[in-house]
């Protein structure tokens, strides 16, 4: 896998404003969590915004939104807006996290404990 050898150095607000075309938050229905898993459903195209293409390259297999933010060195809110674009055009799939309601489900906790015990 290759990723653009671009340096995302200048993280000033001007640059972030350009990347998101001035949007500070995604549309309501496209809100993702730090641990929503993203999988690419399309291949990156040269005509795409570089950040969109980088996300598609990175997510050939599932990756959390937090990891995408870390690898792109972009704040979560910016990544959220970029993902909303990709979700709206079905270029990525989002796998929602299991949200612990008031109290998490017993089976889920047992699965976590089982996984930890194997460490």
């Amino acid at each position: 896998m290759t990723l653009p050898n671009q340096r995302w150095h200048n993280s000033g607000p001007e640059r972030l404003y350009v990347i998101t075309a001035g949007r500070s938050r995604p549309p309501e229905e496209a809100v993702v969590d730090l641990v929503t898993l993203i999988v690419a459903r399309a291949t990156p195209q040269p005509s795409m915004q570089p950040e969109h293409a980088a996300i598609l390259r990175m997510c050939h297999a599932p990756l959390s939104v937090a990891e995408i933010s870390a690898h792109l060195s972009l704040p979560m809110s910016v990544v959220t807006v970029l993902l909303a674009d990709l979700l709206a055009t079905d270029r990525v799939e989002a796998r929602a996290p299991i949200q612990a309601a008031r109290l998490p489900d017993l089976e889920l906790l047992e699965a976590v404990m089982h996984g930890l015990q194997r460490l």
Partner: protein
Amino acid sequence: MDYRDSETDAEPRGFVEPGQVQTLAASTTAAVKVVIVGGFGVGKTTLVGALSEIRPLTTEETMTQAGVGVDDVAGVERKTSTTVAMDFGRISLNEQLVLYLFGTPGQERFWFLWNGLFDGALGAVVLVDTRRLEVSFDVIGRLEERGVPFVVAVNAFPQAPVHPVAELRASLDLPDSVPIVDCDARDRGSCRDVLLTLMRYLHTLAASPEQS
């Protein structure tokens, strides 16, 4: 005001090297998260690093004084935004499920402004340094306020005063039901046991919700 957590030595900032991205197994369907909270230098990143299957990464959020999202262009001229960085790692628990561990940054008040950090988290681990017990008060208070279940892990620093659990419980004003365990944040087995303690505690709460 600019704030950046200097505690991390994780990811070199600025670019992605090809091959640096370690994706999850294609079969992974869902993630859960646990938040590690504690004062600056208490060992949160060490704990995350001891358990994580990837080198800990850093994600960040820009927050205005009001504590919401990116403040459009307003930040260009009036630098009122604050950058809060957070280290995290992950553990693939089985073919479908992955656990993410988030270590919150040094200045307590910012964590609770981070939208979605605690939402949906299974629970939290409060990592405590007995040499600086006072920094834990605020954290514990805020977790209680938010209804986030937590366990307390005492990181064993050399020269740190050893407090009997009962004394610690009294100092931190914790009910008897909240587990307090010792740990060595550098040791994988010890950190795993802390998470297991949290899961058992959550299991107890979930099995008898009327007592929570």
